[in-house]
């Protein structure tokens, strides 16, 4: 054999790499779930979404008297139903919905508006304080001109 020492080292290294690669490939094919867990070892799950109803808090100790009078939610509450995502069309309401005061659920029941869009509408309302007109809805992600035109019949803006 006419390999020099350095050449031998290089070739051995290459062979070793290929061996390792083949081994890993075999293992990943056999245990895909374990490989996936290993790949995501440093991933953090996103925080749980905040439910529509805020949770009760403990009162500050130096203001106990005052807080007891004003925050009645210290007792455990029965679980509130989460936002209803009704697949069936909601019964048509003849009165237009006041978009400035409607709740998330009410907005989500509008035709063509799902819970996601409803949430964005409420966020926009919270940011603006209130909508001046239905024009204010323009520009919300997911609310194109067609849907907006259709919505106009069902909503109004109250003071």
């Amino acid at each position, binding site marked *: 054999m006419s390999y020099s020492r350095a050449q031998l080292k*290089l070739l051995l290294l290459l062979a070793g790499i*290929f061996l390792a690669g083949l081994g*890993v490939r075999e293992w990943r094919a056999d245990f895909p779930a374990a490989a996936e867990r290993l790949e995501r070892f*440093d991933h953090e799950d996103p925080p749980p979404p905040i439910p529509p109803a805020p949770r009760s808090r403990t009162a500050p100790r130096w203001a106990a008297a005052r807080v007891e009078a004003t925050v009645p*939610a210290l007792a455990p509450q029965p679980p509130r139903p989460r936002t209803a995502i009704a697949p069936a069309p909601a019964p048509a309401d003849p009165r237009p919905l006041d978009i400035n005061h409607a709740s998330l659920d009410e907005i989500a029941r509008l035709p063509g508006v799902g819970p996601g869009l409803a949430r964005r509408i409420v966020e926009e309302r919270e940011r603006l*304080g209130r909508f001046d007109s239905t024009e204010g809805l323009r520009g919300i992600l997911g609310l194109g001109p067609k849907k907006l035109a259709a919505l106009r019949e069902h909503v109004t803006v109250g003071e």
Partner: protein
Amino acid sequence: MRWQEAPLVPLAAAFALGICSTSWAAAPTSWILVAGATLLTLAACALALGRERVALAGLLALAAALGALRAASEPLPADHIARVALGPLVSVEGRLAEEPVSWAADRTRLLLDADGLRDGPDLRPVSGRLQVTLYGEIAPVGEGQRVALELKLSRPRGFKNPGAFDYPGFLRREGILLVGSGRAESLVALTADDPPWPVRVKRWAVATIGAHLPETSAALMAGLLLGEKTGLSPEASEAFRRAGVYHILAVSGFNVALLASSVFFVLLTLGIPRRATVVVAATALIGFALVVGGQASVLRATVMGLLLLAATLLDRESQLMNALALAVLALLAWRPGDLGEPGFQLSFAATAGIIYLTPTVTDWLSGWSWPKWLATSAAVSLAAQAAVTPVMLAHFNQLSLIGVAANLIVVPLAAVATTLGMLALLAALASVVAADILFQALWLLLLALRASVWAAAQVPVAMVHLPAPGWAAIASWCAALALVPYLNGARRWVRGAELACCGLALALSLWPWVRPGDGNLRVTFLDVGQGDAILVEVPEGPRLLVDGGPAGAQRLDVGERVLAPFLWNLPTARLDAVTLSHPDSDHSGGLRAVLTRFRVREFWENGRWISGTEDTLRAVERSGACRRTLVAGQRLWLGSALLTVLNPDGTRPLDEPPLWGQNEESLVLRLDWRGFSLLLTGDLGAPGEERLLASHAPVRALVLKVGHHGSRYSSTEEFLSATRAAVAVISVGARNPFRHPTPEALGRLEAAGARIYRTDRDGAVILETDGTTLSITRWASGVVDHLALDPERGS
């Protein structure tokens, strides 16, 4: 190191100094030209007279003059787009200068070399580079393609706060005078996507890596090999920063050196003649630099690498320091603005540190009977860390304490991974199967790399944040480093000088922490764009932050980019209280970063959270801060300042949605200190104001933080006349989509006789009072107003 062997170092230093001088004092170009000519004549005369030292001094001064000339801003061409009078929405054509970067779900950033402006039917030729942000899904376009766009153009605007990053200045150095924004649908490709070959290679490499490796590992590999960091998750980037090994993700001299040396040694091992090897290595080097792009670090390493290869070819001994100096000269002559860039400074500081300090430090470590290999790698790591410390502190306030140790493990792993990655890409050209096997081996390596970075980042004080050091501290630190190689001579005065320099650097760095207070109360309304962030500093030391400015998935994290650097520079490690007036994202978003990065003792809230603020809520829960839900009537002492809660009144149960919207449930705080009083109203609107007046809350105050950024539904006449504020501060973003502050609100404030300060025009607004006078600083202009506090006011 002997200085005689690096004759270019003084020249490069003089040139850099000349460039630097333009930022301190801008002399007219003609004066510098005259001075340069005089220096040239003087030096020539001195040389003719045989006075070589004088000639050398003249030469160095001339180099500085040349640097100043090079850095002097060039006059704008007549057709530059920044000169053209522009309408609200303009139609621009141009060529994409780089690949589009998607930095959020539906935000894309383009760099456009404009060449035409559509003016009705005709196309007007223009020039100039634009940075464009497009909203929405864009059609696939790539570098080199000509496109037409409809844009709103404006001058770039940074946040104007003490010690803030100069964003417009940064863009100006990149040759960008205007930024544009537009809708993605307006983008029309005028030519086919036919990129130059380096772009094709890069795209192919990214796609190949993505095809063979799982997502996170592929993102890391693309970062290691090509500097493509867009795929890397924010948590992963943060871990790399904390561990002090972020530099391996930037394409740097490290990659270039690896490429050149692996090509060189493999070819030599295979028995290829030396000359051919050098030529192949040089070609690979240039090709790599073209593919990964023209960052300062790549150019530096390429210039140095080519010089070293040339030295091998010519059988000359190579002088690293001289090669580095030549690289400095070449880069600065080409792009003088780079001198101020962190990337340039880090690359050159690290390289200079390694070249200059490693031999001495290795000797020391070997002297303590460390094994040779460990001593060398530890010395390199130490030398680089020591040299980049002032740069990291000045730009990022970061000092990685784990860095020296982490680099010892991570750099070799990264080196092997990078080399193997190149090999795998090469193999992919020939056979997909062979490439896949190599990528599987690589995956194992990348996992080990990620695990070690992650472990290093978990160490409690892996990274500390310190205020940016002043010039004196940096200079004494550099002097201390420069003296290191002379310490072995054991001359007494050298040791003394070294000790003095180290002590001075340390003392100057510690001074901001131990500086005695001036006994004044300070309130800073930070410029955070559209949103609120207000820091109250009480003379006894406690600090209260009210709201944290905007942040969210689709926008800049103000907490990370504005609040954290501002607080680090104060310096602050702890906030006694953080208050969230209400959970809207322009108030709560930035608090996530604040709660993660600082120790927070108490968190005061109105008890309501809305969807979209999950990240902040989680940060509150993890911060360990004591949470208090405040209601009207409570009083809190903050040092000697008294805080009174005026709103919400607590009549609306927390588990029911607010009657009038979240804004009316804003925490309203009143702060009293000696003769000074301040009313912080959050986003309170008219119904809330009415309720406050009806409850006879003490709203009369000297300074009013105007409710809801100057919305027309806030600040009613009745409320303003009840507060009788002499000073009104509006925290609002320039060009915000809500058109805040509204003329109606401004009119009512003026009619009420308040002096109006606005963060969009004035930058940060800083109130400082000793109890008898109040000074108000507009940070952007530096104008300070003084007001005498009337002792009768409070009665």
